[in-house]
């Protein structure tokens, strides 16, 4: 198999196929499942060791959760404080209500700079607003500088994880991509050689391109400062060398005080990469004469986030600090990888964030892409109760269905509505059990097991047998045994 995905994945929730369908080619891809499993195992093992070592881990999670929840509850005040301080420090703050506006603001800024090229630090927010294709179409050459992002950009691939976006691509595929686009025919597939090729490819760009675009891990209200957390150093390059910096950040990224980083940084690195601290964290405030970009813009992005603030049980979605611990822990993600989620935000956080950003008009299959095992909640450094939000969103999707025609023909919907009626009374429940037993007799083989069922039942029997309904229910047995006798209790 020469290419990781058999079809080019669609990471646009407007067009992506529903999760069960999107997952199929992934499940049939042994290399993907192996790559994903391996990446997850590496990070999980490292994280587990550090969590045990960090004796105040649960207290850090509690405070991390409290800080993020507090910031969201008072988001207006903190955003305004950030804007005031950042502006006082020489930055310019822009507000983008949606993706289109954010793209246009950024393009207008680039045009003012006469920027035909721009270097970028990895930011999932820019992928969310589909910035790169927009800029390219407008004649701006965008150069990703994060190794994974370079691989994806040059290979015309899509990210499948928010911290290790190219984890579904193996070294020989990277070699092929680099050899082709960098003109390096004799390039080996050794990761050291590949990384060295990327380093050389980027060096001149860092030193000559005067305009950069970044995201932000945290916006600090108290100071107007921005923090970027990274491993490779391409962030430091983009944040230090250019003349103009444009930082794109979701409005939910704000924390109240500089001191809050003492909690956030401790939980972020351990959760994201299984390290006590990531190699490089950069903090800057507005413009510092003589050091770094002299023109600094922050583009604050709403794009559906403010609608998520409304309901308390859902507001917690925005606490996310993009560590990806949830998807590393997720047994579903482990088998499907990220592309199945049809969004730049995959995994458990994607399953709740993406449909909500779409205001529940799209990606309605995502809240159901979970077995509700709870592993994500267990590892989330800011205690987002993802299963709780999944259940909220499922209820919203079903409520939508209640007024749609599908409700008359969807066997799952009908089945559940009928089941509810049957459960309301013991006699109807018992009658249904009786009818079920009779009906299923047709499908029950001599060994007492069912091998094949029609309709939605086929979804079970395509890979599992089902033991035939016993001839006597428990309640029937209880009623039949009469007054209690421990000798007969068998």
């Amino acid at each position, binding site marked *: 198999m020469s290419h990781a995905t058999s079809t080019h994945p669609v990471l646009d929730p407007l067009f992506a196929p529903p999760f069960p369908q999107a997952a199929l080619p992934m499940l049939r891809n042994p290399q993907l499942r192996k790559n994903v499993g391996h990446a997850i195992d590496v990070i999980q093992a490292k994280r587990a060791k550090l969590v045990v070592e960090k004796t105040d881990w649960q207290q850090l999670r509690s405070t991390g959760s409290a800080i993020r929840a507090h910031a969201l509850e008072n988001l207006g005040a903190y955003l305004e404080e950030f804007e005031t301080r950042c502006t006082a420090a020489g930055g310019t703050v822009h*507000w983008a209500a949606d993706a289109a506006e954010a793209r246009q603001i950024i393009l207008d800024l680039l045009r003012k700079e006469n920027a035909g090229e721009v270097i970028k630090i990895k930011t999932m927010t820019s992928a969310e607003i589909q910035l790169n294709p927009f800029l390219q179409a407008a004649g701006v050459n965008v150069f990703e500088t994060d190794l994974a992002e370079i691989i994806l950009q040059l290979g015309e691939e899509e990210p499948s994880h928010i911290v290790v976006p190219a984890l579904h691509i193996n070294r020989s595929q990277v070699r092929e991509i680099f050899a082709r686009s960098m003109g390096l025919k004799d390039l080996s597939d050794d990761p050291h050689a590949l990384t060295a090729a990327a380093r050389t490819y980027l060096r001149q760009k860092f030193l000559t391109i005067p305009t950069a675009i970044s995201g932000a891990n945290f916006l600090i209200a108290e100071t107007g400062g921005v923090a970027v957390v990274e491993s490779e150093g391409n962030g430091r390059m983009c944040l230090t060398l250019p003349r103009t910096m444009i930082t794109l950040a979701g409005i939910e990224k704000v924390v109240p005080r500089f001191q809050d980083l003492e909690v956030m940084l401790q939980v972020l690195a351990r959760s994201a990469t299984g390290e006590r*601290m990531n190699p490089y964290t950069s903090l800057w405030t507005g413009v510092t004469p003589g050091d770094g970009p002299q023109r600094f813009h922050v583009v604050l992005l709403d794009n559906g986030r403010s609608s998520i603030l409304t309901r308390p049980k859902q507001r917690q979605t925005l606490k996310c600090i993009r560590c990806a611990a949830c998807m590393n822990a997720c047994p579903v993600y482990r088998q499907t990888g990220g592309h199945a989620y049809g969004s730049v935000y995959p995994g458990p956080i994607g399953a709740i964030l993406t449909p909500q950003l779409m205001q529940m008009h799209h990606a309605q299959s995502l809240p159901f892409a979970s077995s509700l095992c709870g592993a994500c909640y267990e590892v989330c450094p800011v205690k987002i109760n993802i299963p709780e939000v999944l259940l909220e969103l499922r209820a919203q999707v079903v409520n939508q269905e209640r007024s749609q025609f599908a409700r008359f023909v969807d066997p799952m919907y009908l089945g559940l509505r009928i089941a509810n009626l049957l459960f309301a009374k013991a006699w109807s429940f018992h009658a249904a059990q009786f009818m079920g037993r009779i009906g299923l007799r047709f499908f029950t083989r001599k060994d007492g097991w069912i091998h094949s069922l029609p309709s939605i039942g086929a979804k079970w029997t395509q890979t599992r047998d089902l033991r035939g309904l016993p001839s006597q229910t428990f309640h029937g047995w209880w009623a039949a045994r009469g007054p209690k006798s421990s000798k007969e209790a068998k």
Partner: protein
Amino acid sequence: MSAPVQSRQRILDRIRTATLSVAKDASQLADVYAALPRDYIRRGKLSAEARLALMIERLREYDAEVVESTPAALPASIAARLALSGKHTFVVPHGLPAEWLAAGFDWKIDHELTTAEIEQAEGVVTAAFCGVADSGTIVLHHSPAEGRRVLTLLPDWHLCILRASQVVETLPEYFNRCQQPPALATYISGPSATADIEMTRIKGVHGPRFLHVILVRDQGARPTMN
């Protein structure tokens, strides 16, 4: 109202409406913030000796080379380290103590050096603001003795002079030392690294591949904040 102002207002209005029942007004906000639970470790328990030992261990874990020195022996230690490196041309921040500029090397003092000049240097020597032992983190606040951010970014070799009195055990203790938040900061906890290709850890993508630390035992000296 112009479009940008409209969006700002629209977003803030949406936020205000959404958080109406939970947002605090200005007078209460600080109090509510102050009441957030902080039961995590705020101060370490290690002795000064153990703390330094931990800092050294963590630095060495990520292949930084560490030697110890004293305030009196520091210039000689620096000279020795530079000689061992086999390098000749170094950039330094303009506020670096003059006595650290050992004889026999080509010192490019950063009075607005160009990027090309910094690129040509073989190494950089700086002071630091703080060291966090728990994670082996070196904190730079880019003061005159620590230098502009580009100085510790482009050269491949970085010698950092860290005083023992600057070393704290935990990250919260570093934040506690900041009398006010720094405008600029870089936290270094390892050489640049990536695991993007098959989770194989590769070091030194961008930024110095070689970090050397001289830990100065200034035990008599008091730390700037406790």
